[in-house]
């Protein structure tokens, strides 16, 4: 009796996840297959004429996979990491401050509202704003000069480090508020009893943070890491606009998606397809990595729900 009941409920499981999978199949899977198919063809436009599609085997894959690929992969990673590390550190700090009643943060609501604000501006508009602000004749330079901090204007976007730092700063500003809210939600989800117990046991704030808060919010931290990593791999708008699509100086801020974008715009469908497949593989590798992390969590806490059934 019990068994038949659980089988009949399995149906509901399928029904619930059906819309997701149907949508995914139509709007992502089919296009993916199509993209892969074109990666084996020579297919581009020259002027108003279309060349191809002609089957060329793995030619596109060979032409895309050169030292450039790894340079751009490295660029993408660097741009992501120098934005992500400060973002997660600051967000953890802020989140723990916000939930700490002893600190009596004044204007808490105000600060929360403000730090999330940059996330609302579209990346393209934000990058354009930064470009103007940090240009050699821009407000930032004129303020620095007026304060007597610098002699001549600083050419922020003239050096690889400067450009990368600007990109990182923008990513940081756009996302640290978001992450703070996420982490706060997680920390507040922890039972107050745990904190009280820790306090009674004589934990100082630092110990509480490292030994209680951090381990307990690990799932959300994982989530943040995953979403940020996806975002990082897809990094496009900000460096594209800041550097006019060239990733200058010397292509040091040129990301993989900027490359894909340039290939698609040419348009060179064949090579764009091949690059897409490589990107897919890189994503896959990240996936396995992430999946292992998530799974390790599951193994530690044998699922209660299964037993209860």
């Amino acid at each position, binding site marked *: 009796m019990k068994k038949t009941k659980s089988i009949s409920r399995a149906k509901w499981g399928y029904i619930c996840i059906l819309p997701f999978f149907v949508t995914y199949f139509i709007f992502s899977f089919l296009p993916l297959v199509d993209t892969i198919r*074109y990666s084996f063809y020579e297919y*581009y*436009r*020259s*002027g*108003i*004429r*279309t*060349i191809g599609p002609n089957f060329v085997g793995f030619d596109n894959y060979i032409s895309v996979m050169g030292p*450039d690929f790894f340079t751009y992969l490295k660029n993408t990673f660097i741009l992501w990491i120098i934005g992500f590390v400060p973002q997660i550190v600051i967000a953890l700090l802020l989140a723990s401050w916000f939930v700490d009643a002893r600190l009596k943060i004044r204007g808490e609501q105000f600060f929360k509202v403000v730090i999330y604000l940059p996330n609302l501006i579209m990346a*393209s508009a934000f990058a*354009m704003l930064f*470009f*103007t602000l940090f*240009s*050699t*004749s*821009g407000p930032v330079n004129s303020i620095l000069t007026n304060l007597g901090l610098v002699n001549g*204007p600083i*050419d922020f*976007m*003239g*050096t*690889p480090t400067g450009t990368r730092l600007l990109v990182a700063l923008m990513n940081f500003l756009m996302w640290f508020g978001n992450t703070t809210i996420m982490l706060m939600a997680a920390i507040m989800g922890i039972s107050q009893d745990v904190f009280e117990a820790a306090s009674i046991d004589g934990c100082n704030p630092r110990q509480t943070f490292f030994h209680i808060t951090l381990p307990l919010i690990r799932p959300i931290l994982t989530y943040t890491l995953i979403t940020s990593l996806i975002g990082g791999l897809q990094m*496009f*708008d900000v460096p*594209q*606009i800041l550097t*006019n*699509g*060239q990733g*200058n*100086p*010397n*292509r040091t801020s040129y990301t993989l998606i900027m*490359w894909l*974008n*340039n*290939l*698609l*715009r*040419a*348009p*060179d*469908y064949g*090579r764009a397809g091949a690059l897409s497949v490589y990107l897919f593989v890189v994503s896959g590798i990240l996936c396995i990595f992430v999946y292992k992390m998530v799974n390790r969590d599951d193994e530690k806490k044998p699922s209660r729900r299964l037993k209860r059934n």
Partner: protein
Amino acid sequence: MKKRVVSLALALSMVAGLTACGGNPEGGNAGANGGYVAEGEEGKVINIYCWNDEFRTRVEAVYDKVDHTSEDGTITYLTDGAEIHWTINPNQDGVYQKKLDEALLNQGSAAADDKIDMFLSETDYVVKYTDAEADIAIPLTELGIDPEKDLADQYDFTKTVASDANGVQRGSTWQACPCLFVYRRDIALDTFGTDDPDEIHALCSDWDKMKSAGEELKAKGYYTFATYADTFRAYGNSISAPWVEEGSTEINVDPQIINWINDSKEWLDAGLIDSNIKGQWTDDWNKSMSSESKVFGFLLPAWGIDFVLNPNWDGEAGAWAVTDGPQAFNWGGSFVHGCVGTDNAEHVKEIMLAVTADKENLMQITKDYLDFTNTQSGMEEIANDESFGAEFLGGENPFKYFQPAASSIQMTTLSPYDQGCVELIQSSFGDYFQGQVDFDTAKANFERAIKERYPEITAVNWPE
């Protein structure tokens, strides 16, 4: 006209590029299949593709059938009941071309009122659209325009540029774009003790003289030019062979381009050019034309004075003057084409004649917009008209200088790849000028970028 907003460039990315998967240019062989023009009655909607409102203002100024334009500038109503619908897409980064190509690919299947009837192209890519094989732009004779007779007063080089390899003219322009040296009078007085155009010309009649004048300017704290890109057209439009030869897939970098690179590096290192301004069409560049700027002058065509310098100048009129620069060259030029498959052939013909062939109309445009228009006799008249003066230039008559400069222009070295080559060589070598990379790395970066933009390019040849 040449206007790209290089640095504010946006990722107008995949947009059009992708939309063409599958499908060949259906409009392409219309000529072979029969008429260039749709059969039947003249349609009521004239679709015109362009990249800013400049052409619209010219049409409004001189086409006698114009009744009024809607407040938002998207539709111009004609007195005979027809409407011109303007489709405007930005020129920079090839966006305009992508959108246009997209629409051209659908031209065959589009409804009559959705078909493109006219489109504009710029000198940098006019050859792409006048190509005989592509057969997109209608030969003028098919529209009932006889270039020999109707366009006799136009400058010859503009006609050559608008013709395909067989000499069939497929477009027409209302402007010619010789460039002059436009300079600040106050800076000239401060440095050289004179602001007289002829005396200033004597100081900059060739590049060597210009450089020594630049040293004097530098001593006074001024820059000769705003950016290395400002001198590019002087070199870039004087190349001896096209970037890509007809039928070839290899890019040939002309020795003139290398000269530009070497000279720019030299000038920049010597402090004669403001190293903080990276290219044209940027906010920094705009600011270099304001009263606060330390930049002495610009090499601009007539449209540049009206369209770029004037709006960016925040001081009194009369602060700028023009004279001949070190070298005569052409910069820009917008060509008007009838599009194959149009159902408005009569209107296309009328507009084309009104805006590009009628001497009185062209003179009117010159007087209203300071454009150097495509009428040899008209320009000569204005050049010799003692009473004519441009208000912005404090009453100076710039055509006195433009008119002779126009006659020396040769434009025989165009290729469909010019826009990409010009944009990318400037951005790739920007790093080299700024001291970020060495010469060879800049070369390699140019090769990478150009092959991304044009997949069919197989090699880049540099001069020895």
